[in-house]
């Protein structure tokens, strides 16, 4: 600690801090443009010049470390003269036309100019003009306004891990841009809009649609991944106009992913269902809520009376709120059915699968790991903010190792990696487990016997020793592990590895409330207290593959959200009664559903999401429901009343979450569940016959809102349905890049274009789920046949 004095205020500051940090902590304002607390120090804008006693010239506060006894004046004549001088220079080339600039009213340059600028410009000469660049569908450029602070360039290098913007040219000819016209591809690129202190980089979908002072700011939680980034929704006239990050150091720091930033463009899509609809004699008709709810109750009662409650089931998307899932399971259990699930993309429900797949640690903990083994995860596109934490760990020197079904491109340096077809991931993990056992053969005799047939390679040994020797090691299982047909085997082996190596086990769940679904009791075998029920119902897969007589579907589109779309659609169409609570209507719904009840997306309802680390985050509605849509919790509450079930007298969503809070188990004590005692059968460590499908879900296909977000669907990350094979595998099937192929799984089939992709291992075919074109196929991770079409 050193003692310094700023503007006469004595301060105690940590050694090595810069003056500007000390001033910020003490609440003393110093103007700045290039300095940003999350970026490296550039000291190129010179706006933060301050007077330091005994220094000959004013010094930049952002690049001057504190020293004991330092006396600093931020508002002295010398400091102000310097700051005003810099301001005048910065304004030389900057257009003075704030009224026509999209940043006007929320511009750092405008604000600082109000405090430090002159009221008239003395500059008479020509101003420089810079051509605007097209850097993609998300960010607009107005490069004449750029003041060369280089925050956007440093963001790319340091945070996104993908340097796409740079400063080309020199002196007056220096320009910020990509040099060659191209779109930014970082999944975090939108953050440069917040960083840009002027109107040079602004949001393309939002541009010129509202002024800062016309909108109100509402707090919310990001609904598209299990990070739960904190958001501000900016709303005007009952509409979400844009989304920006809300700072929370423990979760998203000051960043959000592009998916969280631009998904609002899908909220008011034309497909929004704005009034209840019922199907009578095969024809759809719009109706009022009372009629629709009576119709719902009548039809469900009839189905239950005719076939028993065991023939009714409810499925909820994993991005529904805690309150919604809790009420839905309460309703169904009240009706006598245990057929409940939110694990729509899961394929394996064996008893060895995890009981609470959560991160097992805080998000901030991820950046402190020294060795990480990622299993079946494309964390960069699935949880971009999680990848950012891992990137920080990797830059600190952590070894991030991979066992993945696709050689995904990460924005951090990856260490040892095994890229292998999904069915071989189990034996790869078993190899690491055996390598760990071999480190202490005497103690692990039984495990060694059980793993006798497992081949151990030098990569397995390296991974094992890295995990064992690291102070802070972690195993993280991602979406491809959670959807893996042998999730139970992966979980058991992961448990064994963590026990032998001292590493921590964690899951990276896919959706914003995946963890919440487990806590809300949206499960066929456990209630909201986490207690097993005496007669478990059917899980998601069984419900959709075996078929039930009636279904209640919440906020989901089975053709895109389920592990096996073909089976789901077949059985939904065959059911007698399908009640669908949905914000959007699709032609598929019109075919299988009998009632369409319009419910709200996250922006129009209060609710709670539990993120990967188990943090409960409540949020409120930012805008009123669109049309006749109503928050799901209200609809379910009324349905509970109409069925005359007890305990449906809630007057607020908060009451529901408080009720659940008192019941739900604590994740920290519950752990991940499962054990490592009974190791899985490892007889088939060779390849299965034919090809194994990798049905990962692309970043912008994850849920019903994102799939309709027009801005995101124009980016390079928006995938089209196709079949991706490596060159050798394509050759074996007589296929070439661009060829047309017939892809089939049992009776299900699709015609897809072939793409040769070196990232895909032998024996596997990458066919994304959740995208139009592949919804006619079956299991997301299952055997698949490919034939060439002439």
């Amino acid at each position, binding site marked *: 600690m050193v003692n310094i004095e700023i503007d006469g205020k004595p301060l105690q500051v940590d050694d090595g801090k810069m003056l500007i940090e000390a001033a910020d902590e003490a609440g003393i304002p110093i103007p700045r443009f290039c300095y940003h607390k999350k970026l490296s120090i550039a000291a190129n804008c010179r706006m933060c010049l301050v007077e330091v006693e005994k220094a000959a010239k004013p010094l930049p506060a952002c690049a001057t470390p504190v020293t004991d006894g330092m006396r600093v004046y931020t508002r002295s004549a010398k400091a102000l003269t310097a700051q005003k001088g810099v301001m005048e220079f910065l304004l030389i080339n900057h257009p003075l036309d704030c009224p026509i600039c999209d940043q006007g009213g929320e511009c750092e340059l405008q604000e600082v100019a109000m405090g430090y600028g002159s009221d008239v410009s003395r500059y008479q000469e020509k101003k420089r003009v810079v051509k605007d660049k*097209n850097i*993609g569908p998300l960010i607009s450029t107005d490069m004449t306004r750029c003041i060369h602070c280089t925050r956007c360039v440093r963001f790319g290098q340091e945070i996104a891990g993908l340097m796409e913007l740079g400063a*080309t040219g*020199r002196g007056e000819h220096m320009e910020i841009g990509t040099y*060659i016209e191209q779109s930014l591809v970082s999944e975090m690129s939108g953050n440069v809009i917040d960083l840009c202190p002027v109107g040079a980089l602004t949001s393309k979908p939002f541009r010129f649609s509202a002024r800062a002072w016309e909108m109100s700011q509402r707090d919310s939680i990001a609904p598209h991944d299990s990070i739960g980034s904190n958001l501000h929704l900016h709303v005007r006239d009952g509409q979400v106009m844009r989304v920006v990050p809300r700072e929370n150091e423990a979760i998203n720091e000051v960043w959000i992913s592009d998916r969280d930033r631009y998904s609002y463009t899908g909220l008011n899509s034309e497909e929004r269902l704005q009034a209840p609809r019922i199907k009578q004699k095969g024809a759809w008709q719009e109706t009022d809520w009372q009629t629709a709810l009576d119709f719902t109750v009548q039809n469900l009662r009839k189905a239950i009376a005719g076939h028993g409650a065991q023939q009714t089931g409810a499925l909820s998307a994993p991005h529904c709120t805690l309150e919604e899932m809790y009420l839905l399971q309460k309703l169904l259990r009240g009706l006598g059915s245990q057929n409940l699930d939110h694990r729509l993309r899961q394929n394996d429900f064996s008893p060895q699968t995890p009981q609470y797949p959560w991160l097992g640690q805080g998000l901030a903990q991820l950046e402190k790991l020294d060795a990480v083994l990622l299993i079946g995860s494309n964390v960069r596109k699935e949880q971009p903010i999680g990848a950012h934490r891992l990137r920080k760990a990797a830059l600190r020197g952590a070894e991030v190792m991979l066992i993945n079904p696709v050689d995904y491109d990460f924005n951090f340096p990856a260490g040892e990696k095994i890229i292998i077809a999904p069915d071989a991931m189990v034996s790869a993990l078993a190899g690491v487990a055996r390598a760990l056992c071999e480190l202490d053969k005497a103690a692990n005799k039984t495990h060694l016997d059980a793993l006798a047939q497992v081949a151990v390679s030098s990569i397995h040994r390296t991974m094992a020793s890295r995990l064992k020797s690291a102070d802070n090691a972690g195993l993280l299982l991602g979406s491809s592990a959670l959807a893996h047909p042998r999730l139970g085997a992966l979980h058991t082996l992961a448990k064994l590895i963590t026990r032998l190596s001292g590493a921590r086990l964690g899951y990276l769940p896919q959706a914003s409330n995946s963890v919440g679904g487990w806590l809300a009791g949206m499960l066929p075998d456990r209630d909201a207290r986490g207690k097993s029920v005496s007669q478990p119902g059917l899980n998601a897969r069984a419900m959709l593959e075996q078929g039930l007589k009636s279904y209640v579907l919440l906020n989901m589109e089975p053709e895109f959200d389920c592990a096996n779309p073909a089976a789901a659609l077949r059985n939904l169409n065959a059911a007698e009664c399908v009640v669908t609570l949905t914000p959007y209507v699709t032609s598929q719904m019109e075919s299988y559903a009998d009632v369409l009840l319009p419910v709200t997306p996250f922006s129009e309802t209060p609710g709670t999401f539990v993120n990967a680390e188990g943090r409960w985050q409540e949020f409120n509605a930012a805008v009123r429901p669109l049309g006749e849509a109503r928050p799901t919790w209200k609809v379910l509450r009324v349905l509970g009343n109409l069925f005359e079930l007890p305990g449906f007298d809630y007057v607020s969503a908060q009451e529901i979450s408080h009720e659940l809070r008192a019941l739900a188990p604590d994740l920290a004590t519950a752990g991940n569940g499962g054990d490592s005692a009974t190791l899985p059968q490892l007889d088939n460590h060779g390849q299965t016959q034919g090809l194994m499908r990798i049905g990962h879900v692309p970043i912008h296909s994850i849920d019903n809102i994102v799939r309709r977000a027009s801005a995101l669907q124009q980016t390079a990350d928006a995938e089209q349905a196709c079949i991706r094979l490596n060159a050798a595998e394509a050759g074996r099937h007589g296929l070439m890049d661009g060829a047309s192929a017939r892809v089939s799984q049992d009776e299900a089939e699709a015609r897809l274009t072939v793409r040769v992709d070196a990232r895909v291992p032998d024996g596997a075919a990458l066919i994304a789920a959740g995208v139009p074109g592949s919804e006619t196929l079956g299991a997301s991770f299952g055997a698949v046949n490919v034939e060439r079409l002439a």
Partner: protein
Amino acid sequence: MNAVPMNIAAKPLAELISAEALAEIDRWIAKYPPEQKQSAVIQALHIVQDQHGWLNNERMDAVAEYLGMPKIAVYEVATFYTMFNLKPCGRHTIAVCTNISCMLRGSDVIVSHLEKKLGIRLGQTTADGKFTIKEVECLAACGGAPMFQIGKTYYENLTPQRVDEILDKLK
């Protein structure tokens, strides 16, 4: 859909320059610690430019790939230094200094003489592909101002007459 092209994989550097030139770049890379091989970027660009006379995007991308740098970081370097030609240029590039010493000693006259004689403006190349003239910053020969550089040779104390003699000798 947006028609903006995406990153396209770069051609390997070995396909663009001779084996000797590649060995020369490797010699420069070896001078720096392995994790800082991007320190060789300026020399690598010079060597590639010597082979072709100028740098196009393909060549810069190949250098980026070879040195493990982001492409834009190579563009930053190549656009910063006037010694790198980012457009095709003539057999002889005349780099005229117009900084203060040369300007005080009459570089304006030299520039306008060159422009008139060759019928092109600064930054342009003659139709026969023989000469390119460009304006550069101080080449550290203020004692002999005004001056220009052709290829690797400095010509000092220039007058229009001397410029004519120099150019006439060049093929």
